[in-house]
């Protein structure tokens, strides 16, 4: 790279020739004022605030857009520069309401700060204008007050270039120019319209003045708050943001640039914090006495729990106890939960909701590649040439990753979307394979067939890194595009086109989620993805890989920390004697080497009374698990149920003891995001009322059971984790502090691992091709239940809505359970748009509002799984034999009028 030497204000700096004067000045810690600049955006030079004097130039130059030249001499604060900046500020100020006195932005407003810095006369130099009298109040999350807008255009650019929605534009021209946002005023019912605001708030978060402001009832001044950096508690992207706190209350969320999300957030991240202080929060331990929940002391509650644990264990044996850990809780807490179950209960009956989402990933990838996690990193999206997004509605389920994929596609990368619905990404895809739900293996085999026939596979890579390729060829040779087209309901040409787009580029990456995993052959679906990637040499290289997008903030961590019935933390098998010995020594108790039961089996056990006591931490199986009626039967059959949560969930309603825990904002710890990055969470507010962090509660229970648990802080727990978990061995809070680190990290001088398998498949020796034949879902439409139901998450809610239902604006945005249905199918059943219908399967019935859409095929319907008495009343609990994931994505249903 060419370095050039530049002189700025008598100081010299040597920097890359493609950088700008602004960046050069930054190197020298010289502050140049800007309004429209953002290092993530293309410079527009529109505000003209950053002008500087460049020797030899006719006019002042904008530092944000002018590249440095060798020998350039720049003055950033000379008299003409100061005068020019003052001119801008005077012009802006004269067309801006003089409302700093009451403006919420005061103290955090660039116009205010610069006006102070540059001595702007508060009595405007020009007659006061109010040319932009426009107030947009229609969005539920924020307002646009055009009067305060200085038209820097950052919001327009952020929406177009970073969020890639293009919902914001300029309207009118000249002095009347103003910002205009395409709003969706109706409740969305899960529809994301193109060019319509998705309320991500990225514009709001970057508005330099008070024009775009979050709707908030909190009154606070920006100088009264403290800011605490932490990790978002929603999906697995692991966005970094700061909680803005006043008087022990979170009043705003500010994104953090530079990390995982580089300053981007989604609607839930930006605006979904109000559940923290919600009056519905559980405040005291509760014990069910005569059918009623009664407030009790912690001692009473914990003593009862310990008594029941001992009693049940004595009476029915250790395997009659089980614990459900939580993908929402921290790594430390998951570690403690599995420790409590293993060391305290004496069984390996510990599991968590990963069983319902990525159990097949862990099983499928660990056996073919070595590790069951995303091979590559989020930041590598920016180098990918072709994306295959399969079974992931990324822009709704992992919105920030969705935006990053969109950014890359806009820069010219190819996009193949494989999904039964025309999801948002499908609209910008080169090919959309709108397959029948459950036909992933067929489509993967079809793609591989074309790649093989056309010689687009990477034979050198295959020879060097893999085994069993010949077996694969035997299977895929039967999957001609014609046959696959028929199975999947897509066109032959699209299969061929997609295969070429995927195989012909240098760096192709697969991104997938529940559409692949939640099937009765989910493990095989995952292995098919591995086959496809291995065949084209797309594993072990930057910007490629097989990337399962993890759904929960810490579902990766919960798996990593052994909240699984077959492994200790770090995927160390419970059946391995040496491992068992290591943990027995560390924990000072005898441990079981019998693999525990998985979540669905536990539920069966409970309904059979093989399991008598269950301790559920931060999970809501009454809504999240398939076949709600079955789950209800199971849980009510228990002798004793402990639920530890932040709200009274549907599951908590069935508990014997409820323990009030705290939210992510009230505790310290770590989350591991989807790209294996372990990131800090930090306490921003003190726990409310009589609530306690989960890790403290668990520690207390362990102590009362007589286990060794001398943790003074949560960091002590983490240090115990690193001493026992090789993939986490090199971490400590200090190292994680800045941007977190990615496992595997075997030692404290190891930098962490950006992408896996860069030096081959060391764990298995070679990656393994698994020949797989297509097998359909367990339940297919028939005369009685003629429609295929598929399920999923939406943008505005998270899982069982425990948190998002307590954020009023989110709740209003998507208030009802809905069912998406094609026009033809709707006609067939004579049902209308917005009408409520009854949807039934062999297992139950659910009510939903009809949404007729052209994004779904005839005969297929879609329902979100957030709502109690919703999709999971209908879903099929049929399990994948290998990993026990239920077939949540496909079942047969019928529709009747209400």
């Amino acid at each position, binding site marked *: 790279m060419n370095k050039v030497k530049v002189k700025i204000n008598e100081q010299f700096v040597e920097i890359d020739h493609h950088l700008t004067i602004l960046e050069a000045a930054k190197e020298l810690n010289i502050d140049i004022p800007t309004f429209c600049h953002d290092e993530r955006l293309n*410079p*527009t*030079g*529109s*505000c*003209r*605030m950053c*002008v500087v004097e460049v020797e030899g130039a006719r*006019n*002042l130059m*904008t530092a944000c*857009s002018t*590249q440095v030249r060798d020998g350039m001499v720049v003055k950033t604060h000379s008299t003409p520069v100061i005068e*020019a900046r003052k*001119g*801008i500020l005077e*012009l*802006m100020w*004269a*067309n801006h309401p003089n409302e700093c006195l009451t403006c919420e932005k005061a103290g955090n407003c660039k116009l205010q700060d610069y006006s102070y810095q540059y001595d702007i006369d508060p009595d405007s*130099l*020009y*007659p006061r*204008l109010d*040319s932009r009298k426009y107030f947009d109040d229609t969005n539920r999350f924020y307002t646009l007050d055009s009067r305060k807008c*200085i*038209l820097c*255009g950052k919001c327009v650019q952020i929406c177009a270039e970073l969020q890639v929605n293009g919902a914001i*534009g*300029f309207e*009118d*021209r*000249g*002095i*009347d*120019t103003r910002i205009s946002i395409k709003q969706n005023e109706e409740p969305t019912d899960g529809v994301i319209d193109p060019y319509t605001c998705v309320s991500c708030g990225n514009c709001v978060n970057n508005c330099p003045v008070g024009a775009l402001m979050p709707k908030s009832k909190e009154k606070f001044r920006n100088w009264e708050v403290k800011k605490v950096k932490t990790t978002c508690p929603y999906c697995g992207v692991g966005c970094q943001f700061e909680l803005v706190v006043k008087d022990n209350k979170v009043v705003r969320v500010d994104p953090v640039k530079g990390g995982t999300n580089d300053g981007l957030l989604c609607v839930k991240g930006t605006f979904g914090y109000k559940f923290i202080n919600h009056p519905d929060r559980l405040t005291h331990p509760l014990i069910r006495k005569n059918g009623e929940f009664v407030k009790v002391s912690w001692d009473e509650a914990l003593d009862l729990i310990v008594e029941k644990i001992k009693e049940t264990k004595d009476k029915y044996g250790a395997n009659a106890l089980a614990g459900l850990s939580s993908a929402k809780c921290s790594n430390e807490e998951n570690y403690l939960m599995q420790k409590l179950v293993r060391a305290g209960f004496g069984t390996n009956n510990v599991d968590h909701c990963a069983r319902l989402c990525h159990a097949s990933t862990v099983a499928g990838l660990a056996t073919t590649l070595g590790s069951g996690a995303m091979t590559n990193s989020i930041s590598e999206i920016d180098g990918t040439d072709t994306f295959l997004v399969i079974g992931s509605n990324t822009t709704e389920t992992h919105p920030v990753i969705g935006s990053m994929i969109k950014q890359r596609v806009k820069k010219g990368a190819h996009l193949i979307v494989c999904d039964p619905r025309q999801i948002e990404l499908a609209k910008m895809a080169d090919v959309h394979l709108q397959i029948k739900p459950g036909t992933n293996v067929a489509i993967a085999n079809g793609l591989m067939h074309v790649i093989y026939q056309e010689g687009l596979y990477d034979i050198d890579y295959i020879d060097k890194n893999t085994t069993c390729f010949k077996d694969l060829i035997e299977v895929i040779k039967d999957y001609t595009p014609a046959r696959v087209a028929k199975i999947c309901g897509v066109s032959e040409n699209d299969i061929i086109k997609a295969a070429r787009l995927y195989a012909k580029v240098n760096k192709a990456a697969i991104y997938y989620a529940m559409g692949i995993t939640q099937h009765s052959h989910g493990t095989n679906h995952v292995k098919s993805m591995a086959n496809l990637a291995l065949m084209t040499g797309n594993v072990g290289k930057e910007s490629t890989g097989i990337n399962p997008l993890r759904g929960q903030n810490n579902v990766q961590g919960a798996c990593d920390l052994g909240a699984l019935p077959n492994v200790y933390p770090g995927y160390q098998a419970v059946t391995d004697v040496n491992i068992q010995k290591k943990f027995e020594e560390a924990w000072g108790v005898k441990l079981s080497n019998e693999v525990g039961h998985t979540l669905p089996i536990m539920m069966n056990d409970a309904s059979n009374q093989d399991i008598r006591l269950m301790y559920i931490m931060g999970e809501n199986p009454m809504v999240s698990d398939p076949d709600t009626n079955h789950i209800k039967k199971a849980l009510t059959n228990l002798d004793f149920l402990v639920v530890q949560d932040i709200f009274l969930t549907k599951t908590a309603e069935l508990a014997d003891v409820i323990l009030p825990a705290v939210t992510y904002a009230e505790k310290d710890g770590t989350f591991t995001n989807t790209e294996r990055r372990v990131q800090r969470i930090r306490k921003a507010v003190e726990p409310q009322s009589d609530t306690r962090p989960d890790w403290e509660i668990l520690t207390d229970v362990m102590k009362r059971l007589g286990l060794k648990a001398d943790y003074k802080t949560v960091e002590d727990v983490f240090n115990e984790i690193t001493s026992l978990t090789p993939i986490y061995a090199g971490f400590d809070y200090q190292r994680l502090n800045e941007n977190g680190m990615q496992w595997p990290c075997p030692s404290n001088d190891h930098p962490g691992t950006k992408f896996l398998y860069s030096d081959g498949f060391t764990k298995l020796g070679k990656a393994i091709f698994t020949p797989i034949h297509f097998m359909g879902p367990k339940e297919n439409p028939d005369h009685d239940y003629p429609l295929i139901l598929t399920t999923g998450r939406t943008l505005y809610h998270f899982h069982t809505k425990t948190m998002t239902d307590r954020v009023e604006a989110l709740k209003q945005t998507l208030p009802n359970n809905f069912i998406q249905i094609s026009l033809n199918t709707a006609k067939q059943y004579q049902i209308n748009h917005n009408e409520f219908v009854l949807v039934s399967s062999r297992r139950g019935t659910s009510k939903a509002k009809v949404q007729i859409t052209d994004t779904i095929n005839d005969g297929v319907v879609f329902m979100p799984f957030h709502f109690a008495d919703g999709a999971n009343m209908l879903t099929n609990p049929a399990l994948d034999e290998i990993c026990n994931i239920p077939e949540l994505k496909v079942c047969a249903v019928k529709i009747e009028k209400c």
Partner: protein
Amino acid sequence: MQFYRAHVLICGGTGCVSSKSHELKAEMEKELKALGIDNEVQIVMTGCFGLCEAGPIVIVYPEGTFYSQVKIKDAKRIVTEHLYKGRIVKDLLYYESIQQDKIKAVNEVDFYAKQKRIALANCGVIDPENIDEYIALDGYQALIKVLTQMKPEDVIEEIKLSELRGRGGAGFPTGLKWDIASQYKDDMKYVCCNADEGDPGAFMDRSILEGTPHSVLEAMAIAGYATGAKKGYIYVRAEYPIAVKRLQIAIKQAKEYGLLGEDIFDTNFSFDIEIRLGAGAFVCGEETALIESIEGKRGMPRTKPPFPAEKGIWGKPTLLNNVETFANIPLIILKGGEWFSKIGIEGSKGTKVFALGGKIKNTGLVEVPMGMTLREVIYDIGGGCPNGKEFKAVQTGGPSGGCLTKEHLDTPIGYDNLVKLGSMMGSGGMIIMDEDTCMVDIARYFLDFTCEESCGKCTPCREGTKRLKELLDRFCTGKGTFEDLDRLESLAYYIQDNSLCNLGQSAPNPVISTLTHFRDEYLAHVVDRRCPTGVCKALLQYTITDKCIGCGSCAKVCPQECIEPVGKVINEKTNRRAYVIDHTKCIKCGACIEACPPKVSAIITQ
């Protein structure tokens, strides 16, 4: 091919079309048919002749009889008298012929005599909707020459040799631009024709497109060959329906003849052209805003660099030239760059088309060699100000140009000369102002335009032009102060220095040039609260003179009731007094003047 004994050319430019030249043609055809001579006389709808003032224009060949302002009812006379009986209809001739009682062919009248037509050569000569007529006048010969005998670098060399500079306004050397554009390598490159003629009053680009669309297509293909581009865009405003239609026809015909499309003349050069319609925003004439608009975005300028030659349409290298620039190319190729460079003066070669407008006798389009003086253009060709009024100033370069005065009339027209005087060539608008024009008001008029047309992107232009306009409003309404005058001047220079694109940078030019050349008029508005020309209504003062007979008609109609008989005594006996207007209340509605008996006419404005 059929032969005719006479050809009638009727102007089909926008100006004449709006004075019903289409209907005129139909009427004449009807008359010809009635007389049974429709196979002896051919009527051709041509492009603009330029002398729009005299439209609709009809010219009869072979002798070149020049009829002007022909009405539909005149069709019958021209057909029966001239075309049937061979007698010229004298009273319909152009006024010069009538005045001088001498039948003048079109090229003999003063308006055309001093012109030299290169870009407009075919306008008013050929049927623009017939490619054969263009080909008959050596059309597409230049493209053949280029493709068969010249290497791309030779073409660029020839253009450089011609010293042609961009006719869109900035005057960047065309050859150099082509050279730079040819240097950038990419899988796709574009040639783009800027036909977003935004200056009010300028219409040379429209006339070229309407009159000789193939010249532009041919030139674009040549440019494509020279710079390595395979695709061209013409960005033309939707308000030019005739130009758009003729371009569409021309592109279709050129493709049918294999002059556009794949493998032109069996060379392996392919070039295709697509039309993009603009929506009439002035800023879209700015090259980067134009590119944004072609890409389907809101037309807002981008920062430069990168220049379009490096990153233009869809981020690919793009050569952008204006219509008139392109129109010069075929002749430069055919006759050689040296031929072209012999026309004009140092730094400004060839000819330039100007649109004469405002207070001038011969409103219209003229093409003159560079270096001709303003005086020659305004007086010899334009005929000076009408009604014997005195010339005061000329605004060159459109709304963002500057005003020049009498002292500048002998300046030879050229890019650098005009800039030196604080104005510019621009696209060639030339608005003439006479003694009745208020220069403050004119500056306000132009600012009104640029203020309205600012795209709103950068602060100095968006907010600043509005403030300039506000200040000018103050002067025009008598509220201006010396402080305002200082602010006006400093803000004007501020906007010039700090705006993002050329629109903002040049928007203050009318203010700066009027302040430079007509400061006394500003001072009159400030010090005397007086508009010397009487244009600024708010500064008029209604006064009742000594002629007042005290009839009181004025007082009766005054809506403000601000006229009272408090003047000097007119009639001692009756003690009747003259009426006086209270200026603090007067709203200058003029009702009193209307009411004052015509014989008396006692009320005047000052």
